[in-house]
């Protein structure tokens, strides 16, 4: 009993501290969201203001930009900890690294993925997304961005020791993001065409479940390797 409460204590402490850090550095956190907003606002200006054309582009466009916005924010996931030596303390903590990594990823999702999801309907209106697409859009982004944060943590952990890991991070992570993008965008697209999107959403849910179990382990292993060198 005592062991399990203290296990949860490690998770809760890191969760709280990272939320507090996110709050103190809130200026940086808005970056992905602003990027998301700007790109989507530019689409009608750059391509066409015709609602019928935009409606066709909307699902894919919103999903691609959400994915890139997440990618932008990943670089810093473990960077700060690596630079100030906190990472070493994680690695020699008696608490399992899995839970510490999970806590960090959950906070990352709360401050990037969740706001993206909440803003998506506004952008859907801008891109004349048909009404039937809104619920699948939010649902697919809810599951999808969580997967993106979890899988992205592996890449961030692998490249944390490199001085310019940003490009490498994108190259490692992009292939893993492709399935999420395909199923996410197709869930919204089929809903706007009046077809059910439950199967795509179910697949996204299974992606999230698998990455929830596997990704923190992989990221923890990658962190040990990165810190070793």
């Amino acid at each position, binding site marked *: 009993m005592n062991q399990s409460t*203290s*296990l949860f*204590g*490690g998770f*809760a*402490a*890191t969760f*709280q*501290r990272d939320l*507090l*850090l996110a709050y*103190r*550095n809130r200026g940086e956190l808005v970056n992905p969201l602003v990027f998301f907003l700007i790109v989507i606002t530019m689409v009608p200006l750059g391509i066409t203001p015709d609602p019928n054309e935009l409606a066709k582009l909307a699902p894919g466009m919103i999903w691609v930009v959400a994915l890139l916005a997440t990618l932008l924010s990943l670089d810093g996931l473990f960077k*700060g900890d690596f*630079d*100030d*030596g*906190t990472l*070493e*303390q*994680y*690695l*020699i*903590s*008696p*608490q399992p690294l899995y839970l*510490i990594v999970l806590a960090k990823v959950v906070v990352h999702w709360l401050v990037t993925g969740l706001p993206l999801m909440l803003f998506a309907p506004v952008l859907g209106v801008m891109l004349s997304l048909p009404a039937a697409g809104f619920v699948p859009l939010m649902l697919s982004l809810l599951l999808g961005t969580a997967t993106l944060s979890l899988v992205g943590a592996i890449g961030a952990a692998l490249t944390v020791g490199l001085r310019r890991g940003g490009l490498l991070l994108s190259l490692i992570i992009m292939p893993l993001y492709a399935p999420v993008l395909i199923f996410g965008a197709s869930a919204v697209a089929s809903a706007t065409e009046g077809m059910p999107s439950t199967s795509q959403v179910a697949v996204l849910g299974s992606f999230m479940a698998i990455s929830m179990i596997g990704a923190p382990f992989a990221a923890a292993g990658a962190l040990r390797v990165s*810190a*070793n060198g």
Partner: protein
Amino acid sequence: MACERDERVLFCGLSYRFEPGHVVQIEGPNGSGKTTLLRTLTTLSQDYAGELLWRGRPLSKQRHDYLSQLLYLGHLPGVKKALSPAENLRWYAHSRGESARRVGTALYNVGLAGFEEVPCFQLSAGQQRRVALARLYMSDQPETWILDEPFTAIDKAGVGALEQTISHQAALGGTVILTTHQDLHSIDASHINLRDYQPMEQQPEKQQLQDYQAPDCQQ
């Protein structure tokens, strides 16, 4: 134990028994592998040949117990600048599953009373270092302390207080392993000089290295 970094043998044939109640000072010129040795002892670095035993059994089999009583202070302080000293220490205690009731006392002991809620980026380099050092006061159990250059950026009075704390920890039955280029005045420390364990040839080729290791370093 032997250690190698980037195909360069830092030291080999090192065998030592760290006894409870002892302070051990690791010495050696810059680049001789002091930090590497300490990181190996904390299990952070796994690039070594040989064996690490703790309480007579292989360390890897009792990692959790070992880490629960280990305190490591590296070159990097592990202090978040956006947080206050108290917040930093509270996280440190909670993340290890310990109680944070001694945070106030610990900060008082390192001379940071009154700075508990000031964000660390407003503190001086020495004060930030003291936030990291405050961890030494968070527990009253005998522990293993591994300190890499703990006296960096600390003023004379602070060094004196730190030496006292280290002696006190040793008296409690803890083990303190530290590196420093300063002489320890008030501590009766044993010494390991890594220069004594340096291989004869400084930068052997890889093939030679394997040949070389065979007679001397495989204990």
